[in-house]
């Protein structure tokens, strides 16, 4: 969101080279073939902060938005594909997550801000598996929690009028009877 914008952008530009190196290291982690870079024609993705990632086609296939784009353009993969809605940090996280086989525990180590950025990116890229896992994790945060906890946790403002809220609470009173939240 807005508050992360400018300062992180410059920080990322500063560490651009290091990030490229990390990306290559990641590819080595998940595909033992370190010289696949040249042979299988990795697909270039350019994040919103102008960093170019080279990603294996098998991973890009999971990004249905990108995959569709490629197919609609006669499989033209020499030009980097722009991802205006995805930062390099986020894309790196996605690749890292994938490399770890979508380990849920890994997600739980991330901050909420980052989890939601992942969700937005996964939604934009149309990565179903990733989105299902992430939304399930969020749902787990909501289960058995009180309404107040959920609002605080997700920074949601209660925009009901007092009358509306009373009415809704009454309609759903049954869901609060004997409800012991584990906030």
């Amino acid at each position: 969101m807005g508050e992360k914008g400018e300062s992180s952008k410059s920080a990322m530009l500063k560490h651009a080279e290091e990030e490229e190196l990390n990306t290559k290291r990641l590819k080595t982690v998940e595909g033992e073939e370190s010289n696949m870079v040249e042979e299988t024609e990795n697909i270039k993705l350019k994040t919103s902060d102008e960093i170019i990632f080279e990603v294996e086609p098998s991973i890009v296939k999971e990004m249905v938005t990108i995959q569709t784009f490629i197919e609609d353009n006669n499989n033209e993969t020499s030009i980097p594909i722009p991802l205006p809605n995805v930062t390099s940090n986020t894309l790196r996280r996605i690749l890292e997550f994938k490399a770890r086989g979508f380990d849920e525990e890994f997600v739980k180590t991330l901050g909420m801000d980052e989890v939601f950025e992942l969700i937005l990116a996964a939604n934009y890229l149309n990565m179903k598996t990733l989105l299902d896992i992430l939304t399930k994790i969020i749902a787990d945060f909501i289960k058995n929690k009180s309404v107040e906890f959920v609002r605080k946790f997700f920074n949601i403002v209660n925009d009901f009028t007092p009358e509306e809220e009373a009415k809704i609470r009454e309609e759903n009173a049954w869901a609060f009877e004997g409800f012991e939240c584990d906030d």
Partner: protein
Amino acid sequence: MGCCCDEDDGDIFRHLMNSNFPSSSSTSATTTTTSSCTVISPMNSYFSALSSTDILRLIFDNLPIPDLARASCVCRLWNSVASQRDMVTRAFVAPWKLNDVVGNPLSGSFWRDNSLAKFAVSHHITRGDTVASLAVKYSVQVMDIKRLNNMMSDHGIYSRERLLIPISNPDILINRTCFIELDVYAKREVAVLYPNDLPDRRTAYVSNRISSEESNKKVLESLKRSMHVDNETAQYYWSVANGDPRAAFAQFSADLKWDWQAGHS
């Protein structure tokens, strides 16, 4: 980083303010925010993700019914998403892997409980059926059948067109479609399973369709008069004839003839 200036998000809020809560909130607009507006704050870090109804739906898809109900109390947007019929249906059928629930319950309280007791199989009564035979057929207890259908005795079975049979094995619900009915005997709304998922539309035992019950009453009365029999007998013949008055009368005459020929009259 997400786009906080999406036009879509603006539309969502305009739609919410107009449709769900038409009354203006002019004087009571005070909430816990510093600004006086009553929408999800753009300063909220999670604004974009949580204001996307698509993403909210995906999140809510994982919630069981009580959590879904509580989610609808969080804010207007969550309320609009969590109370959608397909979200509620999904939460209702999820534990049983049902295909669908069809029909509109008379009261929203129907959706609160999706325990196995909410479901029943519709068994159309045919000759030779007894409560005991049905209990064996469906692997349930006689008491449970009687309780569900409010039967005082075992013999009232022939005054009914069908019995609701409680469900012993939840596996039979998998991939099926059930129909919401207010059964007049059970006196509550039940999610009913029909053979081949085809509900029997010509029924007198379902009171959602009040007007058809009244016309059925008229038919029964005329049967009673023409056959010179009591209520129970008329209802019995009507049920074994599947609601067809002419067939009921024909069956009755045939029975009479059989009685006479066998020297019983």
